[in-house]
């Protein structure tokens, strides 16, 4: 389909301190309805958006981190997490919530959406973009 474009969303800010993370997630979900090729990148403090066990009730905010789990159902399953950013912040893949999707081309097998990547791979993701959105 020639009118399909690759949308790359780059997330570089921690959640709750600013509205970027929540706004990004909302735009991704809206965009997902248009059946485009969608890729998400989490790097720098953006990796904190995906941590397990978030509980912002004490600061009077909504826990939107649960919404990331729905991305797979919207065919948003290319989620790239920068390995260096995790490492620099003392985090590993185990600190992040698992994000999965069901692969319709593989008998609906459940697969991981998150891929740990290097800066060079992120560079290639950026170069693959028709549209780049930054949050």
């Amino acid at each position, binding site marked *: 389909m020639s009118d399909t474009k690759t949308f790359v969303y*780059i997330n*570089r*800010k921690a959640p709750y301190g600013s509205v*970027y993370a929540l706004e990004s997630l909302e735009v991704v979900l809206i965009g997902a309805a248009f059946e485009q090729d969608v890729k998400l990148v989490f*790097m*720098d403090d953006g990796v904190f958006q995906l941590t397990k066990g978030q509980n912002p009730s004490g600061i009077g905010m909504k826990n939107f981190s649960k919404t990331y789990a729905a991305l797979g159902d919207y065919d948003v399953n290319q989620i790239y997490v920068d390995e*260096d950013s995790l490492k620099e912040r003392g985090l590993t893949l185990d600190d992040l919530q698992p994000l999965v999707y069901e692969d319709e081309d593989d008998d609906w097998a459940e697969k991981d959406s998150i891929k740990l990547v290097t*800066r*060079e791979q*992120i*560079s290639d993701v*950026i*170069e693959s*973009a*028709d*549209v*780049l959105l*930054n*949050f």
Partner: protein
Amino acid sequence: MSTLHTVNKSAFERNSLDTCLSVCKTDGSVLLIEDAVVSALQDTGISAKIEKAVDSGIKFFALREDLEARGLPEQRVLDKITLVDYSGFVDLVTKNDRVQNWL
């Protein structure tokens, strides 16, 4: 296929420029705008990083209006950085395939 990267925050305060340079291809361009123009000056802790990037092939630009607004004279800008005005900014956008804005 080339990418124009814009950076709008001071490299003395944020890591945006570092992150940008870590993913910028050698055929890419970087344009410093808004507060990021303070990163364009000679003899700073950042100068060597920018010169190294230019030597690798990356083209570096800074927005003249933002330097002027901050009282930063052209003579103080690194020789390896090309100054552009707003219409030069538009030219850069049109000459590249995409624009990546490092917020």
